[in-house]
């Protein structure tokens, strides 16, 4: 195990080369909540004064469906080039945090990302009305990245499965999830039957952020500051992103506001339709929202195969010190 001092030195060397100016690193602090990657906050001092960056590195183990940092870097560049509001990724670096792990720096964003504060904190009351249209615009930009425009983007049709038919792949993916649960789940079976019976026709595939929801974007006084957490980016159905933002768990107490707990559907759909140049079909979003709810309601193993206790309180059970092998989230 290398010490943080070694890491600070390597980061200082990397930044000195990048800025072509002497950089001294003041602190390197692990970011909390990064269960799937190693993330750090880097404070440094250079000729232009103090600066701050985030650093994201491949973790020792990754979750199914997640892409590595090199792919993430390419995805962020492609999305930014289309106008998506997301902080710039800089200086892809091999072996920076650990031998064999790729890392990159990200411009530091100031703001609030914690879901319950985004949806309810009084200080953001003026920001919330702007969010749905801003989120719609950024989603439309993300969805302008397509396999046709970016044939070499190193991502797969994951995590909702592979193949040319995202909806069918989603149904197959959810089938696998349900089959991992020993306890019979009649309501989930009814939902999956409904999804399978819809036979949603595929549209042209686009880049899908894959985890576009309240909690994964930063909000400031005037609204959206930037989207992050690109590790589940994949080629798929753009309506999956619109729907995931509306899944009930991301409303953080504001259940009457389906769009991430900050807005109503109609203006969000209208803003997306205008920015994307295609009208939103609410029935398609509904399909993906049902799929998203079913995905979120299905526990899946992170690693190993410990059996979680029965009930809907698994995340609580985990936070009290249960073995970290199970997660109700894709990223525990």
């Amino acid at each position, binding site marked *: 195990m290398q010490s943080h001092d070694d890491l600070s030195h390597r980061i200082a060397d990397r930044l000195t080369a990048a800025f072509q100016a002497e950089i001294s690193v003041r602190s390197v602090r692990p970011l909390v909540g990064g269960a799937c990657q190693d993330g750090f906050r880097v404070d440094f001092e250079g000729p232009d004064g103090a600066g701050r960056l985030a650093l994201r590195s491949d973790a020792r183990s990754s979750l199914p469906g997640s892409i590595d940092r090199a792919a993430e870097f390419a995805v962020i560049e492609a999305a930014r080039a289309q106008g998506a509001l997301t902080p710039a990724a800089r200086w892809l670096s091999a072996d920076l945090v650990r031998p064999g792990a790729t890392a990159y720096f990200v411009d530091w964003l100031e703001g609030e990302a914690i879901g319950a504060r985004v949806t309810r904190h009084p200080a953001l009351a003026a920001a919330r009305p702007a969010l749905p249209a801003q989120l719609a615009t950024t989603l439309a930009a993300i969805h302008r990245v397509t396999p046709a425009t970016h044939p070499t983007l190193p991502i797969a049709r994951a995590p909702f499965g592979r193949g040319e038919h995202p909806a069918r792949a989603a149904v197959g993916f959810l089938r696998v999830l349900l089959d991992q649960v020993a*306890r*019979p*789940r*009649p*309501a989930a*079976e*009814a939902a*999956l*039957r409904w999804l399978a*019976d819809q036979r949603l026709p595929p549209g042209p595939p686009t880049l899908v952020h894959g985890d576009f929801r309240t909690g994964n974007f930063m909000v400031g006084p005037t609204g959206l500051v930037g989207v992050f957490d690109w590790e589940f980016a994949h080629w798929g159905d753009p309506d999956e992103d619109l729907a995931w933002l509306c899944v009930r768990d991301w409303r953080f107490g504001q*259940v*009457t*506001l*389906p769009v991430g707990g900050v807005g*109503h*559907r*109609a*203006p969000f759909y209208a803003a997306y339709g205008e920015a994307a140049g295609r009208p939103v079909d609410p029935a398609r979003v509904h399909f993906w929202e049902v799929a998203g709810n079913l995905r979120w309601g299905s526990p899946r193993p992170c690693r190993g195969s410990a059996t979680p206790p029965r*009930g*809907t*309180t698994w995340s*609580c*059970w985990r*936070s*009290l010190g249960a073995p970290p092998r199970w997660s109700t989230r894709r990223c525990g």
Partner: protein
Amino acid sequence: MAQTPDAPTLLDALARFLGEQVQPAIADPRLGFRVRVATYLAGVLAREARLGPRHAADEAARLAGLLGREAPPPGGPPFDAWLAEANRALASALRDATLPPEQAGAARAHLFATLREALAISQPGFDLRLDVERPPD
């Protein structure tokens, strides 16, 4: 012989103790969060102890009607095994769409009732109204 006070009453007392006396005395916010989680879990256990047996009996009665089977008297391992097997049968019937069409309404009502029962234990405050999303004023 029934214990006095009974399990739900003891668990209520535990939840109240954690929430009203332990929680306010904790300065460390991370530990405070875990105590809040523990308080919530004690509440879940209290409601499970209080409502669980009745919910299971009601669920079994509905399943018996849906599947045309006879349920054993509630309580005990044979009842638990019957309930698990009936749920497996309903799950496969819904998966394969083999329920008779005239049962669709009853099956849907059963799923909603079971959801309401589960939420009454795990999240009594959950808003289950289907029109929970209101259009803008």
